Protein backbone atom coordinates (compact mmCIF):
# COMPACT_ATOMS: atom_id res chain seq x y z
CA UNK A 1 0.00 0.00 0.00
CA UNK A 2 2.44 2.61 -1.20
CA UNK A 3 -0.33 4.99 -2.28
CA UNK A 4 -0.87 6.37 1.22
CA UNK A 5 2.60 7.99 1.59
CA UNK A 6 2.39 9.03 -2.06
CA UNK A 7 -0.77 11.04 -1.44
CA UNK A 8 0.53 12.39 1.86
CA UNK A 9 3.67 13.69 0.15
CA UNK A 10 1.54 15.14 -2.65
CA UNK A 11 -0.50 17.07 -0.07
CA UNK A 12 2.75 18.28 1.44
CA UNK A 13 3.95 19.44 -1.97
CA UNK A 14 0.76 21.41 -2.52
CA UNK A 15 1.12 23.02 0.90
CA UNK A 16 4.73 23.89 0.11
CA UNK A 17 3.69 25.46 -3.16
CA UNK A 18 1.52 27.83 -1.14
CA UNK A 19 4.78 29.18 0.26
CA UNK A 20 6.12 29.69 -3.26
CA UNK A 21 3.02 31.71 -4.13
CA UNK A 22 2.73 33.60 -0.88
CA UNK A 23 6.35 33.96 0.23
CA UNK A 24 7.07 37.63 0.69
CA UNK A 25 10.76 37.47 -0.14
CA UNK A 26 12.76 35.69 -2.82
CA UNK A 27 14.68 33.42 -0.36
CA UNK A 28 11.36 32.05 0.87
CA UNK A 29 10.39 31.08 -2.65
CA UNK A 30 13.76 29.53 -3.44
CA UNK A 31 13.77 27.45 -0.25
CA UNK A 32 10.22 26.31 -0.92
CA UNK A 33 11.11 25.32 -4.49
CA UNK A 34 14.09 23.33 -3.21
CA UNK A 35 11.84 21.62 -0.70
CA UNK A 36 9.36 20.75 -3.46
CA UNK A 37 12.20 19.27 -5.46
CA UNK A 38 13.29 17.08 -2.58
CA UNK A 39 9.76 15.84 -2.05
CA UNK A 40 9.41 15.00 -5.74
CA UNK A 41 12.66 13.07 -5.35
CA UNK A 42 10.87 10.93 -2.75
CA UNK A 43 7.88 10.59 -5.08
CA UNK A 44 10.10 9.27 -7.88
CA UNK A 45 11.61 6.65 -5.58
CA UNK A 46 8.14 5.53 -4.47
CA UNK A 47 7.12 5.26 -8.13
CA UNK A 48 10.16 3.02 -8.64
CA UNK A 49 8.77 0.72 -5.96
CA UNK A 50 5.30 0.94 -7.42
CA UNK A 51 6.25 0.05 -10.99
CA UNK A 52 9.05 -2.33 -9.86
CA UNK A 53 11.44 -0.45 -12.13
CA UNK A 54 14.96 0.07 -10.86
CA UNK A 55 15.83 2.41 -13.73
CA UNK A 56 13.72 5.06 -12.06
CA UNK A 57 16.45 5.41 -9.44
CA UNK A 58 18.81 6.68 -12.16
CA UNK A 59 16.34 9.43 -12.91
CA UNK A 60 16.06 10.31 -9.24
CA UNK A 61 19.85 10.59 -9.03
CA UNK A 62 20.24 12.73 -12.12
CA UNK A 63 17.41 14.94 -10.93
CA UNK A 64 19.07 15.43 -7.55
CA UNK A 65 22.35 16.42 -9.22
CA UNK A 66 20.72 18.98 -11.46
CA UNK A 67 18.57 20.38 -8.63
CA UNK A 68 21.87 21.21 -6.96
CA UNK A 69 22.87 23.30 -10.01
CA UNK A 70 19.52 25.07 -9.89
CA UNK A 71 19.83 26.07 -6.25
CA UNK A 72 23.49 27.04 -6.66
CA UNK A 73 22.69 29.45 -9.51
CA UNK A 74 19.84 31.01 -7.57
CA UNK A 75 22.00 31.34 -4.47
CA UNK A 76 24.66 33.14 -6.44
CA UNK A 77 22.01 35.46 -7.90
CA UNK A 78 20.72 36.25 -4.42
CA UNK A 79 24.24 36.85 -3.16
CA UNK A 80 24.85 39.41 -5.91
CA UNK A 81 21.54 41.10 -5.10
CA UNK A 82 22.49 41.28 -1.43
CA UNK A 83 25.87 42.81 -2.19
CA UNK A 84 24.53 45.36 -4.64
CA UNK A 85 21.39 46.35 -2.77
CA UNK A 86 23.10 46.22 0.61
CA UNK A 87 20.08 45.34 2.73
Amino acid at each position, binding site marked *: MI*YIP*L*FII*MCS*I*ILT*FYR*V*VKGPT*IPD*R*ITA*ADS*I*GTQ*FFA*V*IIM*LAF*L*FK*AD*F*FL*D*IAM*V*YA*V*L*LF*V*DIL*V*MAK*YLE*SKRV*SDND
Partner: protein
Amino acid sequence: MINIFLVVLLLFLVVVGVYAILTRSLIASVIALSVFSTTLTVIFLILQAVDVAMTEAVIGAGLVTSFFVVTINKTEEN
Protein backbone atom coordinates in the same frame (compact mmCIF):
# COMPACT_ATOMS: atom_id res chain seq x y z
CA MET B 1 -5.38 4.48 -8.19
CA ILE B 2 -2.42 5.71 -10.20
CA ASN B 3 -4.95 7.53 -12.40
CA ILE B 4 -6.13 9.58 -9.43
CA PHE B 5 -2.53 10.48 -8.66
CA LEU B 6 -2.03 11.48 -12.31
CA VAL B 7 -5.09 13.73 -12.14
CA VAL B 8 -3.76 15.41 -8.98
CA LEU B 9 -0.43 15.99 -10.69
CA LEU B 10 -2.10 17.44 -13.80
CA LEU B 11 -4.16 19.84 -11.70
CA PHE B 12 -1.02 20.87 -9.83
CA LEU B 13 0.70 21.41 -13.20
CA VAL B 14 -2.05 23.75 -14.36
CA VAL B 15 -1.93 25.70 -11.09
CA VAL B 16 1.84 26.11 -11.32
CA GLY B 17 1.53 27.21 -14.95
CA VAL B 18 -1.09 29.82 -14.08
CA TYR B 19 1.10 31.17 -11.31
CA ALA B 20 4.19 31.20 -13.56
CA ILE B 21 2.37 33.27 -16.17
CA LEU B 22 0.40 35.64 -14.01
CA THR B 23 2.96 36.64 -11.38
CA ARG B 24 4.66 40.00 -11.61
CA SER B 25 8.12 39.13 -10.34
CA LEU B 26 10.38 37.60 -12.97
CA ILE B 27 12.50 35.53 -10.62
CA ALA B 28 9.36 34.09 -8.97
CA SER B 29 8.18 33.13 -12.44
CA VAL B 30 11.45 31.33 -13.11
CA ILE B 31 11.21 29.47 -9.79
CA ALA B 32 7.68 28.42 -10.70
CA LEU B 33 8.96 27.22 -14.07
CA SER B 34 11.47 25.00 -12.27
CA VAL B 35 8.67 23.49 -10.18
CA PHE B 36 6.64 23.11 -13.39
CA SER B 37 9.30 21.06 -15.12
CA THR B 38 9.73 18.90 -12.04
CA THR B 39 6.03 18.09 -12.04
CA LEU B 40 6.30 17.37 -15.75
CA THR B 41 9.09 14.90 -15.01
CA VAL B 42 6.90 12.91 -12.62
CA ILE B 43 4.02 12.95 -15.14
CA PHE B 44 6.37 11.56 -17.80
CA LEU B 45 7.44 8.83 -15.39
CA ILE B 46 3.83 7.81 -14.80
CA LEU B 47 3.35 7.76 -18.58
CA GLN B 48 6.29 5.27 -18.69
CA ALA B 49 8.66 7.46 -20.70
CA VAL B 50 11.95 7.04 -18.87
CA ASP B 51 14.24 8.67 -21.43
CA VAL B 52 12.00 11.69 -21.87
CA ALA B 53 11.67 12.06 -18.10
CA MET B 54 15.42 11.96 -17.65
CA THR B 55 16.02 14.56 -20.35
CA GLU B 56 13.27 16.81 -19.01
CA ALA B 57 14.71 16.56 -15.48
CA VAL B 58 18.18 17.47 -16.72
CA ILE B 59 17.18 20.31 -19.02
CA GLY B 60 14.22 21.74 -17.14
CA ALA B 61 15.68 21.64 -13.66
CA GLY B 62 19.25 22.63 -14.33
CA LEU B 63 19.96 24.12 -17.70
CA VAL B 64 17.01 26.32 -18.63
CA THR B 65 16.72 27.71 -15.11
CA SER B 66 20.35 28.82 -15.12
CA PHE B 67 19.86 30.40 -18.57
CA PHE B 68 16.90 32.38 -17.26
CA VAL B 69 18.63 33.47 -14.05
CA VAL B 70 21.73 34.65 -15.91
CA THR B 71 19.57 36.58 -18.38
CA ILE B 72 17.57 38.22 -15.60
CA ASN B 73 20.78 39.16 -13.87
CA LYS B 74 22.19 40.71 -17.03
CA THR B 75 19.08 42.71 -17.86
CA GLU B 76 18.52 44.36 -14.50
CA GLU B 77 19.58 47.84 -13.58
CA ASN B 78 22.21 47.72 -10.91
